């Protein structure tokens, strides 16, 4: 078991990518078989991931050299505490695939089913690979795999606007990828290695040069685009709102988190707190941008009538929370950043769960009624009580109402800002949360408390294959909030190791 | 010290790039782009990367150009349309 679990991080990545590539072949005679294949592949990946996580928490991080090549020639797969996000990715992947079974035929023809599932598996594989690799160049490769599948998934429907949204995303995404690649190259130039741990060591030797600073800025720019931080967020609303709902769930729930994971890797695994490069001026700036992002996202969401557009803008706002949390770090006193880091990391998980719930619920409403505007969906709550009930739970959760999942991150980030001496950020966060709640209450009002729309009288509850995933996710929203110590226990070592503290570090309130 | 051939190649690279930007006819731009990629392939060779030169010649000058040509043939030919 121990021997086997060591291979798991590699196995799950390979399973997803090869499985994805094989999908068109296995479903050549029956297009619909591609669903079962994708389901099976994602289950397998989930199993591998569980093994890896189990090993991580019993024996510590897994460092694995592909085909046994020693550094610096081989490629390292490094499954550390931050990589636990892969657990979420694979789990969410299964739910999204199950959900797609009925839903996706609403958006695409049966001919395209294998393509769709291929892309879903590839995007999952890209994300999983991105989170477990210990090699800078592989980071770039996986980033491209997942981005390309993402562009294609957005444009998979025949809608007119989708291709445009996808193209906008593609141009922004390509520029960001190039900037990441350039960053990798600069770092390689200075240190002569691509392995993250090696780079970190050698940076210590070579000291800070201009190239190292430039590389840092390039990484931050590149990953900011992927995470949709404020000035470079413009691609997100269209892309996330127009994609088929399960794809929106993946994109908003997980893909934007890739930018966050990338930043965590670069800032806290490669450059490192207390290392040769004092990057706190950069994180400081990021913190301010994040505060603006929170408000901008929340503000624009207010003027939307399209239900998925609202969710997309609120994703921008929530990415702001996360970035605010992870940028509250002090270079010389890492423990001061602990609570904020906890908040940011917890919200990476919670927002993934909540936002996918929201998008999947929106998908169920669209699937049943064909409407996506709030003014058309009014009064649907009585016809589809379960979907709308779940949507309400998720909406309360994202507004940070206790005892749901969204509240924990709010609590931690506020604690973090106080500990860090920047209560102004907390003000931005609370104001943002208020705005968020204002438009979610608009949704709840429309669903439950307004005169029903006459044209949707013949509507009943969504099919089971769509209900089951959203109910599971809704339970997740509640459990992560009420039994908050469970996710916190999982994330605590991640926050500590990111800051260079021992993984058992436990301050007051941590 | 760079050899003068390299310098010439690099300058030609710049010229073709500007050509790509300035040509209003997309078909022409695509062909200039192909020339650009070929030049790049030779630059790779000069920099001691024959494998890259091969790939660039095949993928950059070949496949990408063909893709551009297909796209142009199925859409517009003039830039301002």
């Amino acid at each position, binding site marked *: 078991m121990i021997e086997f679990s060591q291979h798991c991080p590699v196995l799950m990545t390979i399973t997803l990518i090869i499985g994805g590539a094989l999908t068109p072949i296995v479903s050549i005679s029956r297009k619909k078989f591609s669903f079962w294949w994708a389901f099976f592949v994602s289950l397998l990946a989930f199993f591998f991931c569980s093994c890896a996580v189990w090993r991580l928490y019993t024996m510590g991080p897994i460092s694995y050299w592909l085909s046994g090549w020693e550094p610096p020639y081989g490629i390292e797969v490094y499954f550390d505490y931050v990589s636990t996000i892969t657990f979420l990715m694979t789990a969410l992947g299964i739910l999204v695939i199950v959900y797609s079974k009925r839903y996706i035929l609403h958006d695409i023809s049966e001919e395209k089913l294998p393509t769709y599932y291929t892309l879903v598996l590839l995007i999952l594989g890209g994300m999983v690979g991105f989170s477990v690799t210990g090699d800078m*160049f592989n980071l*770039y*490769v996986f980033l*491209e795999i997942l981005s*390309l599948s993402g*562009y294609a998934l957005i*444009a998979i429907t025949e809608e*007119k*606007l989708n*291709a*445009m949204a996808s*193209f906008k995303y*593609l*141009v922004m995404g*390509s*520029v960001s*990828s*190039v900037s990441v*690649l*350039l960053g990798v*190259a600069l770092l*390689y*130039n200075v240190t*002569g290695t*691509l392995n993250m741990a090696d780079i970190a060591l050698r940076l210590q030797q070579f000291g800070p040069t201009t190239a190292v600073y430039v590389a840092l800025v390039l990484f931050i720019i590149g990953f900011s685009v992927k995470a949709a931080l404020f000035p470079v967020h413009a691609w997100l609303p269209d892309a996330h709102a127009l994609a088929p709902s399960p794809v929106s769930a993946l994109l908003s729930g997980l893909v934007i988190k890739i930018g966050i994971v990338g930043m965590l890797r670069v800032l806290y695994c490669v450059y490192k707190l207390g290392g040769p490069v004092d990057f706190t001026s950069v994180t400081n700036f990021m913190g301010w941008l994040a505060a603006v992002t929170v408000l901008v996202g929340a503000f624009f969401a207010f003027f939307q009538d399209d239900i998925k557009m609202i969710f997309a803008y609120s994703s921008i706002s929530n990415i702001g929370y996360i970035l605010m949390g992870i940028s509250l770090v002090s270079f010389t006193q890492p423990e001061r950043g602990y609570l904020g880091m906890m908040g940011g990391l917890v919200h990476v998980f919670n927002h993934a769960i909540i936002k996918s719930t929201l998008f999947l619920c929106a998908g169920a409403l669209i699937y049943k009624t064909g409407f996506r505007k709030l003014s058309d969906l009014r009064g649907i709550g009585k016809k589809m009580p379960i979907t709308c009930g779940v949507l309400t739970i998720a909406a309360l959760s994202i507004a940070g109402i206790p005892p749901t999942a969204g509240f924990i991150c709010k609590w931690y980030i506020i604690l973090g800002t106080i500990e860090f001496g920047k209560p102004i950020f907390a003000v931005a966060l609370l104001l943002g949360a208020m705005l968020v709640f204002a438009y979610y209450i608009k949704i709840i009002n429309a669903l439950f408390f307004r005169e029903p729309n006459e044209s949707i009288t013949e509507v009943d509850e969504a099919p089971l294959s769509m209900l089951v995933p959203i109910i599971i996710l809704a339970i997740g929203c509640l459990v992560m909030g009420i039994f908050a110590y469970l996710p916190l226990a999982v994330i605590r070592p991640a926050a500590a190791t990111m800051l260079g503290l021992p993984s058992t570090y436990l301050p007051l309130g941590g | *010290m*760079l050899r003068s051939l*390299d*310098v010439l190649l*690099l*300058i030609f*690279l*710049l010229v073709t*790039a500007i050509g*790509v*930007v300035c040509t209003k006819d*997309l078909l022409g731009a*695509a062909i200039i*782009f192909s020339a650009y*990629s070929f030049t*790049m392939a030779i*630059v*790779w060779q000069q*920099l*001691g*990367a*024959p*494998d*890259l030169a091969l*790939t660039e010649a095949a*993928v950059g000058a070949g496949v*990408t150009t063909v*893709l*551009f040509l297909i*796209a142009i043939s199925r*859409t*517009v030919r003039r*830039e*301002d*349309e």
Partner: protein
Amino acid sequence: MNDLTELFNKLFVNFNYIVAATLFVIGLYTVIAKSNLIKKFMGLNIIETSVFLFIVSSGAIVGGKAPIIGEGVSSKTAFVNPIPQALILTGIVVAMSTTAVALSLMIKLYEQCGTLNADKLKELK
């Protein structure tokens, strides 16, 4: 006069980098300023190749040999560093796939909207 020679020398030594930077700027200009989507994408390709040029140049040793083991090769030092090239190889393929995806998107867009002009597409929305 001496200063000028030195300047030229410096320019020559760094000529690869200068060209890469210039190409980057040309590409960026195309992406931002041109309204035709296909043109935009050519610009993006130029940006990508400029980055590749930069990386390979940084790995190159002038007068070094290709990293291929053959007859009469004994010392390792004269080789060009192979890792950047391996990276670029992947990079070229990735750039090609991005182009493929982008162009197929454009064809789709053109079929639906009848134009590839970014400004006109914005109006259509």
